């Protein structure tokens, strides 16, 4: 579960990036967050990852109050939140398998677990055959799949995706969305920040609209979303 209570975030004097935002996302939900540049979407993701601290208000994720997590416990918290970025952020000098295994390595998982989980998650994202390829040898859509596999290999309860289709063509963008939907069906809460109105409209999921740091719309799943 993700809960924000009156959360504000200001970087410096001026308009706050987030202004008194409150929202609740139940476990297993699939939520889109939409809005123009500067609406506060990226700040929201950073706050949820505890990359930033809110200026005021509380954030609760998986029953943990983020404000009370000590610096040294942040890594442990992040292991329960998978994250995917627009620019994939893969390690260019490592192949597909190593990129995904890296997430397991980082948390100190035993080699045995790595050997079991990495091929399983790669086959889930449809890249089992390309495990030896390097990022430069695969398409953008495939690179995003690797990033998703890396985010999922530690079995997080929540997956945050910041513009996951921003660098992809329409066909690949749809493939990634279908994959995220499948991941959601397996029980993971998915929060997708996107500009892609076409996808948002077609997916018929809950849509939170932000403008200038404030939530200006919250359409339930199944409602027809209009920009």
């Amino acid at each position, binding site marked *: 579960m993700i809960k924000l209570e009156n959360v504000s975030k200001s970087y410096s004097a001026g308009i706050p990036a987030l202004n008194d935002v409150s929202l609740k996302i139940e476990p297993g939900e699939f939520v889109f967050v939409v809005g123009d540049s500067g609406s506060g979407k990226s700040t929201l993701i950073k706050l949820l990852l505890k990359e930033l601290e809110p200026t005021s208000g509380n954030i609760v994720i998986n029953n943990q109050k983020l404000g009370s997590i000590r610096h040294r416990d942040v*890594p442990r918290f*992040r292991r329960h939140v998978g994250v995917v970025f627009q620019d994939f952020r893969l*390690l260019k000098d490592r192949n597909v398998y190593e990129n995904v295994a890296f*997430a397991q390595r980082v*948390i*100190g998982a035993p080699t045995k677990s790595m050997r079991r989980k990495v091929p399983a998650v790669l086959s889930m994202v449809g890249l089992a055959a390309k495990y030896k390829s390097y990022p430069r040898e695969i398409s953008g859509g495939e690179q995003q799949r690797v990033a998703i596999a890396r985010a999922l290999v*530690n079995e997080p309860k929540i997956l945050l995706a910041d513009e996951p289709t921003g660098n992809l063509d329409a066909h690949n963008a749809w493939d990634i969305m279908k994959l995220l939907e499948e991941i959601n069906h397996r029980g993971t809460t998915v929060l997708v920040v996107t500009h892609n109105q076409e996808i948002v409209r077609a997916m018929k999921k809950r849509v939170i609209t932000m403008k200038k740091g404030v939530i200006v719309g919250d359409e339930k799943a199944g409602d027809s979303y209009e920009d």
Partner: protein
Amino acid sequence: MRISTFLYTLKQGVKNIWKNKMFSLASIATMSACIFLFGVFYSVVVNFQKVVKEVESGVAVTVFFEDNIKEKEIKAIGKQIDKRVEVSKKVFVSAEDTWDEFQKVYFEGAEEFAEDFADDNPLIHSAHYEVYMNDISMQESLVTYLESLDGVKEVKSSDAAANTLTDFNRLIGYVSAGIILILLCVAVFLISNTVTVGIAVRREEIAIMKLIGATDYFVRAPFIVEGILIGVIGSALPLAVLYFMYRRIIFYVADKFRWLSGMLDFLPVDQVFSVLVPVALILGVGIGFLGSRMTIRKHLKV
């Protein structure tokens, strides 16, 4: 820590060195130069100290007795001298020995003058102990003690010799400490530079690591390993070079400058390196650790 994580950290440290080959090489070269200079300096200093020690060991305090002292009392004084920690050895020189020595030195070629004294020993009250010390800087306290003993008339010592040697030893100590300190600072600075470049190159990777839940320790460890490895390589190389150089110099001097033997005996290579190897390695590892740790604290906000 799991063995696999340990091995991974080690591998990443080696990779870091490899990725920044030029900077790593520069660091290793400078570290080698520093340790090499340290080694040269150390070898010179210990050999010099050996020479000084040998000179020191020839400096003695002379203890003269009251005129009518009995042999038993002289022996008692000797026993008390033996108990002192400053004393390495003492030699009893009788009045007869003193007179014989005097004749040898001053009447050489004019023995007839000595014959005038017949059986008369003009130095009858010159029996004495020559007391040699472990450390010449202890001379002052020893003299004070000896002067306080019953039956001792006079204690003669060379303050100038003792002070000069003590001051010289101290100077060597200060100079070596100063040079070592400068070398340490240079080496730490260079390792710090290399690690800074390593961090800059891997900034994106570090950001990814943090976002997927890597602990600070996991992020930092490869850089510490990198620093330590540079330290180890940078100290092992000059040690090997120094070892062979030292041996060659000993052989060369012994062969070409035979007339110096006795005056200039080098310490055996094993004796010098039994101290130099662990000290240089500890220095290397220490500098590597310190340099990388300082840099990480400054540039790697995780």
